């Protein structure tokens, strides 16, 4: 291991030297590093190349700073002197690394740096830019980056509630695609269509969005040709970056989409350079197919198998909103012959429960439908609550559609068991304790309703002190959840970081 470390350090030294010679390029690369990290918060820098850059940028920060002025002052240093300097630095770093190793444990918990898991770098976590809207520097950097990638920036809409001034707020009436030129030269049309579908809510739901994303990427790969003198593995990743920024601007990426993108980037960068283009493309398409099949389709089957053990005859099951996974489970259980009835709880303004209601009624399941304000009336009849999840966070909190935490709270008060169904590819390394720090603000005009010919909130924009808040997600504390059913089995909420670690080691 020591020798491996030495080699790494040597490589680092060489790179640092290169940087020190071109001072400007170093600064630019650090900036682009930050922006790369903020653009794809859940995805790690794909190649060893950028990982190496990241490590010196974060950990031994004083060293490059001290190096930078020296060559500028004395450009005529002899080669021997430089070599001696290098060796001295190596020794110093080896000593410091040894000291650090003694202190730090063997954890792979820091998600950002891709250094080998035994070394714990003091990583400066780059916050995703979509939760730093109130910071003008971040906004400027984002604007510069988007300009470079030729993606138009989104103007937010309407008066924002002060509690959520750090988040973007979108309006459905002004999608990002209106600002694009036709034909779009930078963004692939399949991605443009996907972005529009996301922003208008045509494709909604965690699984649906990920699958749509992967299909769009398959189309992109099919239409891709490697330009001359470029390697497919590096160029394709660079091509994907503006697409991801664009999709992020249309609607912030979900945790499942983030994980899928990470996987694709890894697969692309692992393509050996001597591979022919056709074969490489075929391989990638195959990888994506396998991913969808394994992580989504087969996972759903496994989860259904586990859940059916938990559904008994005569059960009254409560579900909230429209979760493709929970609907699948209920349909499977019904086909297997279990006798139960379902209560579908819905909430304004999205009213997704009606879609779930339609699907269940079509299969012949007897259903009841209520709004979320009536949940404490209907809960004494309920025997189990099944909830879907958007993501499972590393501290055991369940991030899901807004209202889920409320249902779990009332169910707990009535002593009704709450089961959450979630595939493992939605597990996320973020931690969060409340629904404020990272959320999505949907179009506030959705809350407006016309009853008996009167629309009370029609002119809400004109009134200064009136604000509408349309949240999309909320987090449920783990003490409200009794069981999480995943494709790996049935685990308690607190075992999520264990699963994440096992997955990381496997990869």
């Amino acid at each position, binding site marked *: 291991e020591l020798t491996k470390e030495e080699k790494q350090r040597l490589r680092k030294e060489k790179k640092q030297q290169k940087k020190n010679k071109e001072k400007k390029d170093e600064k630019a690369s650090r900036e682009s590093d930050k922006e790369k990290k903020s653009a794809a918060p859940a995805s790690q820098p794909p190649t060893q190349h950028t990982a190496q850059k990241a490590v010196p940028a974060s950990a031994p920060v004083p060293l490059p700073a001290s190096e930078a002025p020296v060559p500028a002052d004395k450009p005529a240093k002899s080669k021997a002197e430089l070599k001696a300097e290098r060796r001295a630095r190596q020794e110093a770093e080896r000593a410091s690394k040894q000291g650090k190793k003694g202190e730090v444990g063997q954890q792979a918990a820091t998600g950002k740096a891709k250094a080998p898991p035994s070394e714990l770098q003091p990583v400066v976590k780059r916050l995703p830019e979509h939760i730093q809207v109130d910071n003008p520097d971040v906004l400027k950097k984002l604007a510069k980056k988007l300009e470079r990638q030729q993606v138009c920036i989104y103007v937010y809409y309407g008066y924002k*509630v*002060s*509690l959520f001034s750090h988040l973007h707020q979108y309006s459905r009436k002004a999608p990002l695609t209106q600002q694009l030129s036709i034909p779009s030269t930078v963004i692939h049309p399949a991605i443009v269509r996907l972005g529009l579908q996301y922003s208008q809510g045509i494709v909604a739901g965690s699984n649906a969005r990920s699958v749509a994303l992967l299909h769009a990427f398959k189309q992109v790969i099919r239409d891709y040709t490697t330009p001359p003198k470029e390697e497919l593995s590096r160029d394709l990743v660079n091509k994907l970056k503006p697409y991801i920024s664009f999709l992020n601007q249309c609607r912030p990426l979900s945790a499942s989409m983030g994980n899928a993108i990470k996987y694709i980037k890894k697969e692309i960068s692992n393509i050996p350079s001597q591979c022919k283009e056709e074969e490489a493309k075929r391989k990638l398409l195959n990888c994506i197919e396998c991913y969808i099949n394994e992580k989504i389709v087969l996972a759903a089957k496994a989860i259904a198998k586990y859940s059916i053990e938990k559904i008994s005859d005569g059960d009254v099951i409560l579900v909230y909103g429209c979760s493709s996974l929970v609907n699948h489970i209920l349909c499977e259980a019904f086909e297997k012959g279990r006798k139960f009835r379902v209560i579908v709880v819905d*909430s*304004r*303004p999205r009213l997704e429960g*009606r879609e779930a*209601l*339609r699907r269940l*009624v079509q299969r012949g399941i*007897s*259903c*009841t*439908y*209520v*709004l*979320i*304000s*009536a*949940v*404490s*009336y*209907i809960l004494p009849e309920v025997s189990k609550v099944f909830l879907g999840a958007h993501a499972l966070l590393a501290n055991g909190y369940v991030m899901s*559609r*807004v*209202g889920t*935490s*409320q249902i779990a*709270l*009332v169910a707990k*008060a009535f002593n009704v068991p709450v089961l959450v169904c979630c595939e493992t590819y939605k597990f996320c390394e973020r931690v969060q304790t*409340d*629904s*404020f720090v990272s959320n999505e603000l949907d179009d506030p005009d959705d*809350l407006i*309703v016309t*009853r*008996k010919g009167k629309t*009370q*909130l029609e002119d*809400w924009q004109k*009134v*200064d*002190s*009136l*604000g*509408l*808040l*349309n*949240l999309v997600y*909320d*987090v449920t504390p783990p003490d409200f959840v009794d069981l999480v059913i995943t494709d790996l089995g049935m685990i308690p909420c607190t075992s999520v970081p264990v699963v994440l670690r096992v997955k990381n080691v496997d990869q």
Partner: protein
Amino acid sequence: FTGAVHGFLLSPIEAFLSDLKRGGSGTGPLRGSAETARETTALLRRITAQARWSSAGDLMEIIRKEGRRMITAQPSETTVGNMIRRVLKIIREEYARSRGKSEETDQQESLHKLLTSGGLSEDNFRQHFAALKANVIEAINELLTELEGTTDNVAMQALEHIHSNEVIMTIGRSRTVEAFLKDAARKRKFHVIVAECAPFCQGHEMATSLSEAGIETTVIADAAIFAVMSRVNKVIIGTQTVLANGGLRAVNGTHTLALAAKHHSTPLIVCAPMFKLSPQFPNEEDTFHKFVSPHEVLPFTEGEILSKVNVHCPVFDYVPPELITLFISNIGGHAPSYIYRLMSELYHPEDHEL
């Protein structure tokens, strides 16, 4: 000889009854509870003045009979029943005063009285007193003045409970809470979050009205109540009825709000004037809940699936007294455990069942 109601008294009573029946479609009261209370009391005063009766017992019979009709017209509007019981109590008191007995001895039964007096304590209010009518009408007038001032009395206490830079949460629309918050906004700056309370969305009206008074208001969907609760300092709500055990019968969604407040240890304050206090208990399952047309929840445009699903649209929620921190009424602030005592001062136990 029992008293009788004249013909010319019948039409205002009938008008009132049909008003009650119409107003209860659940889409939000056509008039607030305070108005209903005032109208009931005014009607009772009229009955007292114009009906033919010779003794207190007759009058009480008439009022009970008309009262029963009013209550059956709209069972969920409990203020009607409360006012009737108040007036009956007034009649008893005036009668006792006319007989010369001090008020305390004719109070409700105590264990001591049961043992020492032996048998029913008294007359059935059959004695005739000439001044009784005038006294009763005067007392009812006092009651009416009290009713007129309730909202102001509650709102006057606002500054004691709201400090500046607070975030206050409320649900639906309550005129008492609106007056309460507007009164506090004259001196303090704070932020109000209103849960819209689907499907009737009365929260929207509340928000518009509060923002016109210059209060920073935010409207949220019902589903976001728990999500934003961590940032809320106080929850102030109104209610339809205060039950005898200190619990509430409030608009649906209030129980969830109360549970969320309990989870975050946020105080829950109920602004309820005294005429909302009712001697009912929540155990009567079939009389507690009221349902309205399910097309508010699943409109008829949904078509084919309508015939295959059950849809419920309850109007009220039960909130147990353990979740409530404080009641603010026109006579001051009380803990939920004190409500039973207030009730015994307002109503006579024999009137609990009309």
